[in-house]
């Protein structure tokens, strides 16, 4: 009971602060702060007594660990202490404050404020508040400094060729990474705050001359409607602002690579970054982006196209293999080549379970191994593969719990899923759905399910852009960057609709020849 009351008191204190005016007295303001930051051991208050001329008292309030102490020491405390205060200053505290701000404190990021609410916000975001006794105002000084992770190669999107830097958890560093690639004032960063409690800094970035104003407006509208008390990763936002909330497919892209984000912005897409995660959202998102890797654009286009086709084939196989196997073995045995049927029948002798149960057992085991491999520390990661390959694969076949062809089927399914890391989730769901419908209806059900999948995909929209953009098209320009990757000299238009505002990427071949 007591705890609950304290919490409620804290809440009321936090809410009340908004309306309180700043006091003239330094001590009173400090007390106000201490009340707001009740039970917070990281709040630091430094009172500076200056007796060089006329005595003047000032104070610093900051949160420990979020500031650069050296900067505060050399940029604020030292010069303020050395300042010789005149009689004139004593009479006019506002003038003194202005003098301190303009002439004494030697830190670049500095601004004045008279609202307690704003000051509290500044303190929690790592800024330092400078107060002067006898003046009902304060300075907010940006002297933040905390440990951040170094820029590293992104682990989720590895590339053999191409830039090796990846986004970090720090928003400002991330923006630097983008800005360094696009040295053009056309690149815009718009900041906003999301999360009623966490107040996470969010940045929308886009190329003003390329991004569609309609999509941008739609994004602002959706962000304004977001009601959540905290966000820790862009995954929260992606789920909150996406279209088709019940579809298993991702409707908003995410990347860890600055080069990938920039290339998407250059096609008219919009990026959405938040403080605290290296994953950046890109929108609108279309289906073929699932198959694109940034490396595709850096390596030879034949090879890149081949890799893309492999990924598409992989995704198709990943959903089709278990269902197809079950359909052929339990319903349409006449479609299996005779010798293959004989070896399957031989292998299935004395296996106690129906094919569907066998398939479910092995698929579940595979998913368990996958999830275990992703979660456990790398030092014992080898154990998983040993258990998976030896114990569950070989032993299960020897013990006649599953048949050998099923191990091949599940192995192929698993390996083809790994070709498309972005699609892993949807593929698993679609695969199971197809497997069940096939179990009930045979190969007929499989095609029925596939048809349903295509209808579903065709009906999706991401921020007004058809999810299957370019897939059903027969115009050469539309398919240049889909299942294949056309050479750069041939891609002279941006993707339709997304890049509609300024379609021409570069002069077309014809124009180039004429000039």
């Amino acid at each position: 009971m007591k705890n609950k009351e304290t919490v409620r008191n804290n809440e009321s204190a936090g809410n009340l602060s908004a309306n309180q005016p700043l006091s003239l007295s330094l001590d009173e303001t400090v007390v106000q702060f201490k009340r707001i930051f009740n039970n917070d051991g990281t709040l630091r208050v430094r009172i500076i007594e200056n007796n060089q001329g006329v005595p003047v008292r000032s104070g610093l309030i900051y949160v420990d660990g979020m500031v650069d102490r050296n900067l505060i020491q050399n940029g604020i405390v030292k010069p303020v202490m050395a300042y010789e205060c005149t009689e004139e200053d004593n009479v006019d505290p506002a003038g003194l404050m202005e003098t301190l701000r303009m002439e004494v404190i030697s830190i670049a990021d500095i601004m004045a404020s008279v609202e307690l609410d704003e000051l509290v916000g500044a303190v929690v975001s790592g800024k330092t508040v400078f107060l002067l006794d006898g003046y009902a105002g304060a300075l907010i000084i940006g002297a933040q400094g905390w440990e951040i992770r170094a820029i590293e190669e992104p682990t989720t999107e590895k590339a053999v060729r191409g830039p090796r830097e990846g986004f970090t958890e720090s928003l400002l560093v991330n923006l630097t990474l983008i800005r360094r690639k696009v040295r053009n004032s056309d690149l815009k960063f718009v900041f906003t705050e999301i999360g009623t409690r966490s107040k996470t800094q969010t940045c929308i970035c886009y190329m003003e001359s390329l991004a569609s104003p309609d999509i941008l407006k739609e994004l602002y509208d959706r962000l304004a409607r977001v009601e959540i008390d905290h966000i820790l990763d862009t995954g929260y936002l992606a789920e909150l602002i996406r279209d088709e909330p019940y579809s298993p497919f991702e409707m908003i892209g995410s990347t860890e690579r600055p080069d990938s984000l920039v290339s998407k912005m250059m096609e008219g897409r919009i990026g959405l970054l938040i403080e605290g995660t290296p994953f950046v959202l890109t929108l609108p998102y279309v289906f073929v982006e699932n198959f694109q890797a940034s490396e595709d654009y850096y390596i030879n286009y034949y090879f890149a196209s081949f890799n893309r086709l492999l990924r598409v084939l992989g995704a198709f196989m990943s959903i089709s293999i278990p269902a197809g196997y079950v359909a052929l073995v339990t319903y349409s045995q006449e479609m299996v080549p005779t010798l293959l049927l004989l070896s399957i029948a031989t292998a299935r002798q004395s296996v106690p379970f129906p094919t569907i149960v066998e398939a479910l057992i092995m698929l579940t085991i595979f998913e368990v191994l996958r999830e275990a491999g992703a979660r456990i520390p790398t030092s014992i990661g080898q154990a998983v593969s040993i258990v998976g390959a030896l114990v569950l694969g070989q032993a299960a076949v020897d013990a006649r719990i599953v048949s050998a062809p099923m191990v091949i089927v599940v192995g192929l399914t698993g390996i083809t899923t790994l070709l498309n890391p972005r699609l892993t989730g949807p593929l698993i769901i679609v695969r199971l759905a197809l497997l069940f419908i096939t179990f009930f209806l045979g190969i007929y059900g499989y095609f029925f399910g596939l048809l349903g999948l295509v209808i579903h995909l065709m009906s999706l929209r991401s921020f007004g852009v058809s999810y299957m953009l370019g897939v059903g098209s027969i115009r050469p320009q539309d398919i240049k960057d889909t299942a294949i990757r056309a050479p750069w000299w041939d891609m002279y238009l941006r993707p339709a609709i997304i890049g509609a505002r300024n379609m021409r990427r570069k002069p077309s071949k014809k124009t180039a020849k004429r000039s």
Partner: protein
Amino acid sequence: MRLLRRGMASLLSLLLLLNLSGCWNYTEVDDMAIVAGVAIDKNEADGKLLLTVELVDTNGGMDKTQAGFKMISLSGDTMFEIVRNIISITGKKLFWSHAKSIILSREVAREGLIKAIDWYSRDTETRSDVFIFVSGEKTAREVLNLNSTTETIMSFELAQMMRDEKFISTAPAVEIWDFIDKLETKGNNATAPMISIHEENNKQNERVTGTAIFKKDRMVGSLNGDESKSMLFVKNKIKGGVLDMDDKQGNPAYSLEIISNQTKVKPRIVDGRLQMQIHTVTKTGLDEVMTPQGFGEGESIQDIEQRAGERLQTDILAVIHKLQREYDADVFGFGEMVFEEQPKVWAKVKDHWLDTFADLDVTVSSKVIIQSSAKTSRAIRPGD
């Protein structure tokens, strides 16, 4: 309300779709007996049909590299009755989609095939691309039973043999749809390959050679391997094979490998009578010369070509005459050709076509071209 209506509509269409799916059923592969082939005999005791099915035995497990086989015989009045009754022996439902061959005994063939093959072409599970054979032995069963000596699944082996038949051309490869098609066509008679047991050193092997000749659905006679080849020449079905040739003295001396053959049959009216004009052009390669002199010395290539052509011509005429006089069966489909090219004549003769066929004038002109002499241009010449 709208959502409900949409839901109901999709549910309804889903249910309706399920009814459109045709024939399907859930079966595990290990719960069925896979039929490899079937032999159809007439039971000596009661004169009923005697069915012998060759089943693939999948019980061997994975340690065996090759699937085994099982034979089951049962007699009964109708085919389907027997097929269903076999379940009481195997305990598993027979699965027919992978059957590869049907062997019919001569007796069944002579009495009429329709009763034996109607079920096979009518049932949903059986395939119409199964190969059909007529046993040259007393029963069809004993050919199928050969698998006990050859240790392989006989029916699959026979199917493999028919796929390679084009390299020998001594028997027609006939699938059941083709057989039934010929059976139903006016101006055409069906054929089927003959299968017999070839015994050598106490080892028995199956051998497909010769042709069974049918009139309607009854077998009326047979051709041997060489005659079959000549028949296939007329039917333009030669894809390969060997023409063996004697030298001038009449000793076997040359082998000509058939590379390609083109046969044209033209029904013509000559002096008011229907005449079939057959032209064959055969491209061959000289693949064997059994004389030490080599082919260039004893006689020229042109000589060999000419004699081969003459020989082929005689052979073809002989087989046509045999079919005209002995069996009176138009297995070449001459009637169909007359119908296609001389419809007015056909209208006059179609009602008594087989009589017309028996007296039909036939001319044959064969041309054999030797294109190459295989790898070498010279013969093996013994040194000292």
